[in-house]
């Protein structure tokens, strides 16, 4: 899968209390979209076959689902910091 147009269509965060930072290695991402099942409001694979990060720094309340998304990624393309 070619590299995703990183940042081309990101949603701008307005929440100022974010503590979770998401990084995706698009060389690894194979668009299996399991992240999307774990955290649908954060990850989205669109019909173009690319993964889009809807919220790069989601709030603490999303930590569990985002962590689960990273664990479920079969290509281990997702890293969670913070």
């Amino acid at each position, binding site marked *: 899968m070619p590299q995703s147009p990183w940042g081309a269509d990101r949603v701008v965060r307005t929440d100022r209390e974010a503590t979770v930072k998401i990084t995706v290695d698009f060389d690894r991402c*194979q*668009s*299996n*979209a*399991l992240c*999307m*099942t774990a955290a649908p409001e954060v990850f*989205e*694979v*669109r*019909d173009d*076959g690319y993964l889009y990060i809807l919220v790069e720094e989601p709030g603490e309340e999303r930590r569990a689902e985002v962590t689960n998304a990273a*664990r*479920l990624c*079969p290509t*281990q393309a997702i890293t969670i910091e913070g």
Partner: protein
Amino acid sequence: MSALRPDGHVLIVGASLAGVRTAEALRAGGHRGPITVVGEELPLPYDRPPLSKQFLAGAFDEARIQLRREDDYASALGVDLRRGLRATQLDLTKQRIRLAPIGAADDTTSADETVPWDALVIASGSRARSLPGSTPHQDVCTVRTLDDARRLRRLLAPGIRVVVVGAGFIGAEVASTAKSIGCEVTVVEAMHAPLVRQLGEEMGTACGAIHGRNGVRLLTGTGVASIGADSVRCSDGTVLPADVVVVGIGAAPNTEWLEGSGVAIRDGVVCDDRCRVLDEHGRVVPGVVAVGDVARWPNALFGSPTDASLPEEMRIEHWTNAAEMAMHAAGTLQGTDEPYQPVPYFWSDQYGSKIQFLGRATGFDEVRVVDGAPADGAWLALYRRGDRLIGALGVQRIRALMGIRPLLVERSSWTRALEHVGVVDRPTA
């Protein structure tokens, strides 16, 4: 089950994804005691999906498919990773297993050792089935282990004639990779369509058409009678010249070492819905769980095809289940009391197309294409059993397929599933 003491010794038999993920989950869950992971293979634990794809194609090297770096095991994870050892016996009463070094003669037990545990994780996986009988052919391969894939990778080259026996996902992915390298590829499938057991005949046929569209010959309804020194003879008399033969006819669970131990074995290790291993009388064996390919358990999210009031028993040989079941079983050992009822998922990448499946197709009554068309190589199909949605197949339909997942989690009715995808169900006149 009383929870594992935080300082207890956890012994994990199997050093592939399920075993390593269990160790990680135990640490994440606060386990402080020693964890030993024992594996037969000598290479560092690695990820298997790339073996038939990027690794075989030469795009990924070995470092890239390792699950973790070597020093991670001792330092970051605090795991004693012991490779090249095979578990040969389980003693439930004394809570210990016997280990033998790989390569030692079967009648020598002098190098054996016994290892005790406070909790045992059975993650011994499965192995590739092979064709019965011997063959004079030098290059008959399976693709299960890193060693297998290294060997096949050396053999594949432009112009090489490859016969793939079995049109399942591994066979299809190897065919796709071999074709991309420039090999001349033929796939032979004994059933009338590929993937019948996984997808049913109609969708299996539709998925199998991808071979022909990509210049790979697919012969169905044809078994293999014999493999000669440089050819494969099919049961219908066809002789296929073959420089390399790849056998992809499924996998068998590694349970031999458990025979006679008292653990219930029925095409896998029999577990309850918490991933706890059961004995031959159906009682929970304290402190023992099973994960991954080797484990059979009742998934209450799906009804049994024969009696919908009972959960469907499953044994799943896919990446996602190994990862998810590992997390769940670790939780069970640490005192969580939740049933394991995932939506099964698998994917396959072939000739640039992504095939994905969610849920089950076992005993389905109807499969319906609700979006796209098999003729175009891109479609979404839903599976019905009774009045319920039980599965979904997507080919080049990633987003639409994942949109079905919540419906499977909620045990959605068929009618609601059709509404979701915008199809009105008209009763047939």
